[in-house]
């Protein structure tokens, strides 16, 4: 029996009066990479953000339906959102390191959680940077500003920063879309490795990327979930015609 980490049932989301997500039901398994694909504006990023309740920051958002993580409904009013976000981390489309040193960027999360011991922090920072495959590049300049890194390095730094808080799920919103091909491939390599210990959900508008890194793929269109299946099946033998049209590039 597969262990479903994130289970979504009949999710509706409104931005004010506009319906952005229409009856989404989806079960995301743990320790695998699930990709969301679809044309711009189809709701995949919006859906991703419901999984760590980042949509709460927008006033006009209204949500109906059920999202459970490990069986617990995360929209229950007793939920501690702050702790939820420590369990479900997020990497954003455009890398957003703080205007602090590389070390302090990664140490930010642990410090928030009360870890202030220098030795401990150093260990955590080193491990996270290694996990993000950037340790060798920055180990000699941990105290330099993070803003001095290249785009790809900054993004990997952000991944390290997320991992320093020890989440169980990592959400990635088009993590490589702003990066050059070399950085992109580095990140893709990283993702494949990460799934051994984390559940990964990645939104991407790059179909080939989805095909390369993910185990399962969900295709969204105009706020609806069209098809969700093993990646191989989606890309070679999709059930729905819409999926096939998108995959073959008839629209985008």
């Amino acid at each position: 029996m597969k262990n479903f980490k994130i289970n979504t049932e009949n999710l509706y989301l409104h931005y004010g009066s506009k319906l952005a997500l229409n009856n989404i039901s989806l079960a995301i398994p743990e320790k695998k990479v699930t990709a969301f694909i679809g044309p711009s504006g189809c709701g995949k990023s919006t859906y991703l953000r419901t999984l760590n309740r980042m949509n709460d920051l927008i006033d006009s958002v209204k949500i109906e339906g059920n999202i459970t993580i490990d069986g617990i409904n995360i929209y229950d009013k007793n939920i501690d959102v702050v702790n939820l976000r420590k369990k479900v981390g997020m990497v954003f489309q455009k890398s957003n390191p703080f205007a602090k040193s590389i070390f302090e960027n990664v140490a930010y999360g642990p410090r928030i959680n009360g870890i202030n011991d220098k030795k401990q922090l150093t260990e955590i920072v080193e491990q996270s940077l290694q996990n993000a495959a950037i340790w060798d590049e920055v180990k000699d300049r941990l105290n330099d500003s993070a803003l001095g890194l290249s785009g790809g390095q900054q993004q990997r730094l952000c991944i390290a920063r997320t991992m320093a808080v020890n989440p169980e799920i990592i959400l990635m919103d088009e993590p490589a879309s702003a990066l050059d091909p070399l950085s992109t491939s580095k990140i893709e390599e990283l993702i494949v490795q990460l799934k051994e210990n984390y559940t990964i959900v990645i939104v991407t508008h790059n179909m080939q990327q989805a095909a390369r890194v993910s185990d399962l793929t969900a295709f969204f269109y105009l706020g609806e979930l069209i098809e969700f299946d093993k990646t191989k099946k989606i890309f070679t033998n999709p059930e729905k015609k819409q999926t096939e049209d998108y995959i073959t590039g008839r629209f985008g």
Partner: protein
Amino acid sequence: MIKNRKIDIKGFVIEGLTLSSALFIIAIIIFMLVVIINGGKSAFSWEFLSTFPREGMTKGGIFPAIYGTALLVIIMSIAAVPFGTITAIYLTEYAKENSFLSRSIRFAVRTLAVIPSIIFGLFGLGFFIKFVGVKMDNVFLGGALKWGQPNVLWASLTMALLTLPVVIVAVEEALKTIPRELREASLALGATKWQTIRRVVIPGSLSGIMTGTILAVSRGAGEVAPILFTGAAYYLATLPHALSDQFMVLGYHIYVMTTQSANVDQTLPIQFGTTCVLLLLTFTLNIFAIILRYRIRKKKIN
């Protein structure tokens, strides 16, 4: 083709007119600077800046006025900067856009910015001195007269109200340059709102806080109307050593000396000298603030 040339002349004249207006204004500014610095440079000396006035303001220096001005702006800043910073933080971090509360606060701040400075003096008198001060005297001193009269504390608080809008605007400007994504990143890592403000937002706004403080200090050092009857004095034999003392201050000194000094010819160099000191002080502070502000705006564009 001849017709075109005619229109060109007209355009040239008009553009020249607007340019000359701008240049005329700048010329006046330079003229003022030159006249005042020129008139004051003869009085400049270390003695001038560090000693007390003597012989009816005809000799000696203006040290107590400088000291009093410094004391005034320090106490004023202690009051105004935290107050203004917190208000600015509220406006950018907590207030829902277009909520009634946030619009009211912004309107109140803008109103504060245009109230004539003499009204602040009246408020200082009617509220701080005659209400708070008197109550304090009644409660702590059984009615003796200590706080219910003008002194450096009330004058500084009055000035703090005057400069509050300046601080708020400057800090808000800096807060707005912090991109939304940084706040999101912090929250996504499991930080609370306050932790985000404390660790990400406030460090990012330090330049704005500095700009606001500098501008406030520049205003506070130069304004006279609010302290005309809330604490400034023309001649005191000693420096103020308690919050309940009166004090001398540069702006007030200039005002009284020029309008009612007995020995006009003898005090003239000191008048110019004092004005020169005040002008250079505010000028330098303003330039610092402009440079800071320029840097903040550049950061925003990037």
